C-alpha cells in the first residue's frame, strides 16, 4: 500500500466533527475557567478567582465526598457483583439466558430506571416501604440523608452488575477447560477454583473494571438528576449535578468551567494512577 496523503480525506470528516464538537469546546471550557463573566458576557480575562473559590467551596467538598462514597459503593455493587455473577454463570448451561437477563436493565433509558426506582424508594407509598411495613418495619425515606448515596448506588449496581459480568465472563470463558478439570481432579472446591485459578487469570480485566468504575463514578449524572431532582438539601449532590446547577441555575460560567476542569483533572489523574498500578502489577498472559 503506497502512501498517498490524500487518503487523509477518509478520516477528515470524522476528525472535523470531533474537533469542532469536542476538542474546541474543551479548549473553550479551559479558557472560560480563567475568565470573568457577568452572566453571558465576558468582562475580564486571566483570573484565578474561580479556582480559589473552588478550594473554599463547602458544597464542592460535599460533592467530592459523595462521589467517593458512590465509587466505594459501586466497586462492590457493580464490579464485585459482576464478579460474583460471572463466576456463578460461567459454567452453567444456557448461560446466555442468564447473562442476557442480568444485562437487560442497561438497555433501558435512564429516565425509565430513574422514575421507576424513585417510585420504589418513595417515602410515602413506595414499593420498598410497602414491603417493609408489611413485614412489620418502619418506613424510611430512602432518597434522603443518610441513605441517599447507598440508594442511588444500588440502582447503579442493578444497572451495571450485568455489564461487568459480561466483561468478566468474556475473560473467564476463555480459560482452558483442562486447567480447571485438573484442579478439580486434584480436589479443589468450586470456590477454590474460582478464587485461586480463575480470578487471577482475569486480573487485568478486574483492573480495567476498577478503572471504569472509578472514572464512571465521577461522570454519573442521569440517575442523580432523575431520582433526586433539584435536591435542595444536597443530600446526593455530586460533581456532575453540581456543575449543571452552577452553570444553569446560577449562570456562573466561569465557576462552572473551573469545576469542569477540576472534574476532568480528577478523572485523568485516576486513569493515570490506575494505569501505572496496572503496569506495576505486571503483565498477565495475553489471550
Amino acid at each position, binding site marked *: 500500500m503506497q502512501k498517498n496523503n*490524500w487518503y487523509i*480525506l*477518509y478520516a*477528515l*470528516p470524522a476528525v472535523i466533527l470531533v474537533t469542532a464538537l469536542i476538542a474546541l469546546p474543551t479548549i473553550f471550557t479551559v479558557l472560560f475557567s480563567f475568565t470573568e463573566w*457577568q*452572566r*453571558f458576557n465576558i468582562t475580564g480575562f486571566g483570573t484565578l*478567582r474561580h479556582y480559589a*473559590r473552588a478550594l*473554599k*467551596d*463547602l*458544597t464542592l467538598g460535599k460533592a467530592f465526598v459523595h462521589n467517593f462514597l458512590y465509587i466505594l459503593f459501586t466497586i462492590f455493587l457493580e464490579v464485585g457483583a459482576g464478579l460474583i455473577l460471572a463466576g456463578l454463570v460461567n459454567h452453567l448451561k444456557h448461560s446466555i439466558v442468564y447473562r442476557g437477563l442480568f444485562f437487560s436493565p442497561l438497555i433501558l433509558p435512564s429516565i425509565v430506571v430513574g422514575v421507576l426506582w424513585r417510585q420504589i424508594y418513595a*417515602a*410515602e*407509598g413506595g414499593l420498598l416501604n410497602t414491603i417493609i411495613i408489611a413485614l412489620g418495619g418502619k418506613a424510611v*425515606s430512602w*432518597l*434522603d440523608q443518610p441513605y441517599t448515596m447507598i440508594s442511588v448506588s444500588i440502582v447503579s449496581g442493578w444497572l451495571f452488575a450485568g455489564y461487568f459480568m459480561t466483561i468478566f465472563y468474556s475473560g473467564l470463558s476463555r480459560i482452558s477447560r483442562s486447567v480447571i478439570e485438573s484442579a478439580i481432579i486434584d480436589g479443589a472446591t468450586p470456590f477454590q477454583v474460582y478464587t485461586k485459578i480463575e480470578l487471577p487469570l482475569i486480573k487485568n480485566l478486574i483492573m480495567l473494571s476498577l478503572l471504569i468504575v472509578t472514572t464512571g463514578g465521577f461522570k454519573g449524572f442521569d440517575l442523580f438528576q432523575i431520582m433526586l431532582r*433539584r435536591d*435542595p*438539601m*444536597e443530600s446526593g449532590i455530586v460533581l456532575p449535578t453540581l456543575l449543571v446547577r452552577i452553570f*444553569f*441555575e*446560577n*449562570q456562573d460560567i466561569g*465557576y462552572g468551567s473551573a469545576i469542569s476542569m477540576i472534574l476532568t483533572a480528577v478523572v485523568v489523574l485516576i486513569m493515570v494512577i490506575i494505569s501505572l498500578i496496572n503496569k506495576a502489577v505486571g503483565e498477565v498472559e495475553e489471550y
Partner: protein
Amino acid sequence: MKKVYFLTLVSLLVFLGVSVYGGGKQEGKGTVLRVASSSEGPEHIAIYDKMIADFEAKHPGVTVTWDRSSGDDYQFQGLPSLLQSSTPPDIYSEWAGNRVKNHYLDHEAMDLSSLADRLRPIIDDSAWSGAVFDGKTYMIPTSQDVTIMMWYNVDIFNKLNLKVPKTWTEFLTVCAKIKEAGMTPILMGNSDAWIAGNFVGLFLYRWAGEQKTIDILSLKPGTKFTDPDFVKAMQFAYDLGKLGYINKDLNTLEYEPSFARLFDGSAVMYPLGTWFKTEIIQGIAPDPEKANFDFFNLPAMEGGKGDQSSYMGVNAGFMMNAKTKHRALAEEFLTMMVAPEYRKEFAKVGDFPSVKDTLDPSDSYAMKVKAMMNQTKTVVAPPDTGYNLEMSTALYQAMAKVLVNEMTPEAALAEVETKISHLRQ
C-alpha cells in the same frame, strides 16, 4: 477519490439539513409572537387560550405560541435557556424584585415605562413594586399573591375550642393544645425547600425589621447573615421544631403527598399561599366539599422590629424581551393581558389580579384576602423571588436544618455566610 469528496459533501449536507430542520421546526406561518411561562392550571390556560384566540383573530397572519414546557424548572433553567436560544420568547412571565432586576442587568428586558404609564390607571399602585429599577418600569404586573398564610382546619379548631391566635404567644398555646390532642400542629412538605423558606423568611422580616432584612438579603456591604436579629428570628423556628410543633419529616416529605395528612385530620395547620384554596382544596383534597379550611396571617411577634401586620407576597407579571422583533405586537398583547374583562376571569379561578375592581364582591374568600392585603402597607418579598437565587438556596437549606434542629441558628447562618461569601466581591 471523487467518491470521497462526494461522501464528505453528503455528510455536510446532512448536517446542514439537520440544522435547518432543527431551526426551521420552530417557525409557524407568518409572524410568530412567542410567550413563555412556567406551568399553569388548566383554568388559567383556558383563559389564556381565549386571549390568544381573540388576539389572533384581530391580527391575521400572527400566531401566538406559548411555551410552558419547563414547568417547575422555569425559574432555574427553563427561562434562562429559552432566552439564550435562537428563538427566544418575546414576552415572558416573571416575579417582581431581584429576578426582574437581573433581566434588566442582562439586557434582556425592554423598558416598558411608556406602556406602564398608559396602564397605570387600571392597575393597583402596590402591584408595581419590584417592577421598577432606576426609575424605569420593566414588568407589567398581572397578579399579586400572598405566599404565606396559616391555613387551618376550622372543624378541628372548633372541636378543640381554639381561637385564631393574634400573637406569637397565643400561637404557641394553640400549637401546644393541638399537640396534646395527638395531632401535628404545623405541617409542611418541604422537600423542595421553598415552603419552609417562605415561612421562616417571614419570621426574619417580622423580627429583624423590613429594612434590615432587605439589606442583609441583598448582600449589602457591612451586613452579615449572622446578625443577632437574624439569629433570634431563626430561634423561633428552632423552637417550633424543638417543641415538636412541626412534622419531623418535613424536609423529605414531598409537596403533593404532604396534603394527605391535612385532609385526613392528622395535621391541623399548613403555611401556604392563596392557591391553597384553589389548587389544593379543589385539586388534591379527596372531598373538596367537606374541606373546611380558613386562614390567618402570621401572628404578631411580640418585640419584633418589623411591621407585625405585614404579609409575604409576590407580584407577578410579564416582561418583554429587549431583543424582540415585534415590539408593537408585544405591547398590544401585554395590554390585552391586563384587560379587566380577562382578569375578572382569572379572579374567578382564584387569582388576585393587579387590575383594579376585578374581584367578585360576593366571593367572601377573595374579599377576606384583599382585606388582609389592604390592612398593611408592608409587603415583603420571598427570598427566592426577590433576591439572588444562590443566596436564597443557601438560606433555605439553613432554615430546613434549623427546623429539624440539625443545626443551631448561629451555625446555620454562619454556613450561609460561608457559602455566599464569593457573591460579596
